[in-house]
């Protein structure tokens, strides 16, 4: 709260050579004008005496003055004070003595400790602000490449380094670890000719995760230059005197994920505060790297789980079977689709395609349960409607809200398909003459929802082809189901024979524009009639 009248007390400091108060005028200063008058670098004092010549240049006819900044929180009798960020100059235009200067100098000396504390607190707040904003940004990302580049740029700026690098370790699909790096403040070519840093005396504490290394001049550090072949920096390396390196350690596993390295060509550039900032950013980077690794792992887990539960279609005499399962390209929706091909007694074969609502590990798990249940009831020789009825009952018992669509069809040696459909998309039959029949549409509710699943029969003769598929093939947020199903019919009608795995992949690519954001599973069966007694 500005204190009224405080400005007039300060104005009274301006006295003539005779010690008597002189007329004082208030001049409001903008932030820019104020910074012209401030005799200091960085944080300005709240009240100061400006250089009379500079003041006179700004306020015509001024002989002396006292500048009161907005931070001082002082106001005049009328309650008016400096604008935010600006100041008020109390200006005299007559001959003025040195009284005001002496008083304010004495005041400044007396409050120097307070001013210092304020400066320190302000700097701390700036550090916390910087850390907080970098932390928020880093930990809200999952894309590894963006995390590391953003972290490197933020850290290099925060510590005032000429350049910075972030070396981080990754493990490839064969379990071999390898190291990548990002740079900030230096082009990639500046480092390309050099090998990766090794565990030398200088680098070891960082790569081993022992702690921060800070040196005002690394070239005179006892650890420096002890290793062949370079004994110091390789020829052509960017000049480094000031050196700061911070390990990045996983908060979950304790593993060293990498390290930040900062350099400056002048000695003594890095302070306690820089070290603190670098360590803070390293901490956030570790969390961000952990997040992106865990996310990747979850995604791979769902993918692996789905894949491991999907069968290889067994060879069946008289049928050419192609099956495809393509996990969602965008990752987060993997896990719900399945297919199955089940040989049944009496030369019959069951074809199953299904889709579990949801995604990730949960959907993959429910998919495993659904697939197992269907398989068990199928090999018992139950008719399609009973297989789906029993499976639906089993799934409803597991969880209250299962929603699984499933098309179940049994091919018998007599050239028929008996089928039931639990809320799944219709199947396609391409006859030997090239005409198409779409069948099984809207026969029943999904498993976990419905209880009765009517059964139908359709002719599946020699030369006929059957296609079962999941909705990822025909539907997306940007493509209407009805339109997608129309495209599919046209595409299937145009497929050359015989239909191979490559042709099926081509069909998926054509229909999804190469970027399916949902799982796609399909079974294509051609009745060759060969090998059947």
């Amino acid at each position, binding site marked *: 709260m500005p204190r009224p009248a405080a400005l007039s007390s300060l104005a009274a400091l301006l006295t003539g050579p005779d010690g008597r108060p002189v007329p004082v005028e208030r001049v409001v200063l903008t932030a820019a004008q104020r910074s012209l008058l401030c005799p200091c670098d960085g944080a300005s004092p709240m009240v100061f005496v400006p250089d009379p010549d500079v003041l006179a240049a700004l306020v015509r006819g001024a002989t002396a003055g006292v500048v009161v900044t907005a931070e001082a929180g002082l106001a005049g009798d009328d309650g008016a004070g400096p604008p935010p960020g600006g100041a008020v100059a109390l200006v005299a235009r007559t001959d003025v003595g040195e009284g005001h200067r002496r008083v304010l100098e004495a005041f400044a000396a007396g409050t120097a400790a307070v001013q210092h504390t304020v400066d320190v607190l302000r700097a701390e707040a700036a550090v916390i602000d910087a850390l907080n904003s970098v932390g928020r940004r880093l930990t809200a990302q*999952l894309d590894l490449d963006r995390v590391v580049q953003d972290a490197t740029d933020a850290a290099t700026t925060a510590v005032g380094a000429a350049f910075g690098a972030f070396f981080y370790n990754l493990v490839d699909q064969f379990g071999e670890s390898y190291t990548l790096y990002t740079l900030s403040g230096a082009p990639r070519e500046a480092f390309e000719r050099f090998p990766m840093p090794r565990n030398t005396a200088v680098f070891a504490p960082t790569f081993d995760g022992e702690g921060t290394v800070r040196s005002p001049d690394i070239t005179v550090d006892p650890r420096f230059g002890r290793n062949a072949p370079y004994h110091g920096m390789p020829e052509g390396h960017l000049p480094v005197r000031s050196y700061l390196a911070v390990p990045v350690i996983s908060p979950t596993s304790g593993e060293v994920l990498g390290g930040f390295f900062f350099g400056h060509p002048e000695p003594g550039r890095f302070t306690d505060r820089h070290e603190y900032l670098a360590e803070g950013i390293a901490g956030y980077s570790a969390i961000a790297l952990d997040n992106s690794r865990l996310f990747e792992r979850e995604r791979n887990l769902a993918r692996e789980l789905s894949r491991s539960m999907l069968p290889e279609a067994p060879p069946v005499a008289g049928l050419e079977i192609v099956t495809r399962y393509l996990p969602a390209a965008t*990752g987060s929706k993997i896990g719900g689709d399945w297919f199955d091909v089940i040989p049944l007694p009496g030369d019959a074969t069951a074809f199953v395609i299904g889709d579990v609502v949801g995604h990730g590990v949960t959907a993959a798990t429910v998919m495993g349960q659904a697939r197992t249940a269907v398989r068990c009831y199928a090999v018992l020789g139950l008719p399609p409607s009973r297989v789906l009825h029993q499976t639906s009952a089993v799934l409803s018992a597991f969880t209250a809200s299962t929603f699984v669509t499933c098309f179940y069809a049994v091919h018998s040696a007599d050239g028929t398909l008996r089928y039931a459909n639990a*809320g799944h998309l*219709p199947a396609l039959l391409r006859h030997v003459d090239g005409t198409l029949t779409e069948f099984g549409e809207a026969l029943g509710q999904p498993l976990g929802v419905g209880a009765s699943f009517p059964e139908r029969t359709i002719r599946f003769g020699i030369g006929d082809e059957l296609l079962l598929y999941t909705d990822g093939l025909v539907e997306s947020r940007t493509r209407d*189901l009805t339109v997608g199903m129309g495209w599919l019919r046209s595409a299937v009608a145009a497929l050359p024979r015989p239909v191979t795995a490559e042709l099926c992949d081509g069909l998926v690519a054509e229909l999804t524009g190469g970027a399916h954001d949902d799982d796609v599973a399909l079974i294509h069966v051609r009745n060759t009639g060969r090998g059947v007694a």
Partner: protein
Amino acid sequence: MTEPDRGPFGNEPSGSVRLHEVPGGVVLVVTGPLDLSLAPRLRREVLRAVRLRPATLVIDLSASTFLASVGMAELVRAHRTAGAGVTVRIVAAGPLLLRPLELTRLTDELEIRSTLHDALAEA
């Protein structure tokens, strides 16, 4: 077709679910695609709506652009868990929304109306 940025996890919903209390019931207005990212929000809002013990709970999909199976699962859940005394109605028109409901025969079970007015008229 480019998708808007959907957050670091790629699952920030691009639509919304808003709850409105009206005479005789509660209306949940769904905008944008009712997909994997928006379905959990619909579930939360349904729970909130049911706590208000409305005579009629209307889930208005008129402004929705896509009904994924995960969205249909939520409609069934709402219908089956709303409890005695709460009539759940769905407002949906056009093949974009009706086709998936027909293919899964949820049309047998859910009370579907073509306008919000119709859905509330019988309240």
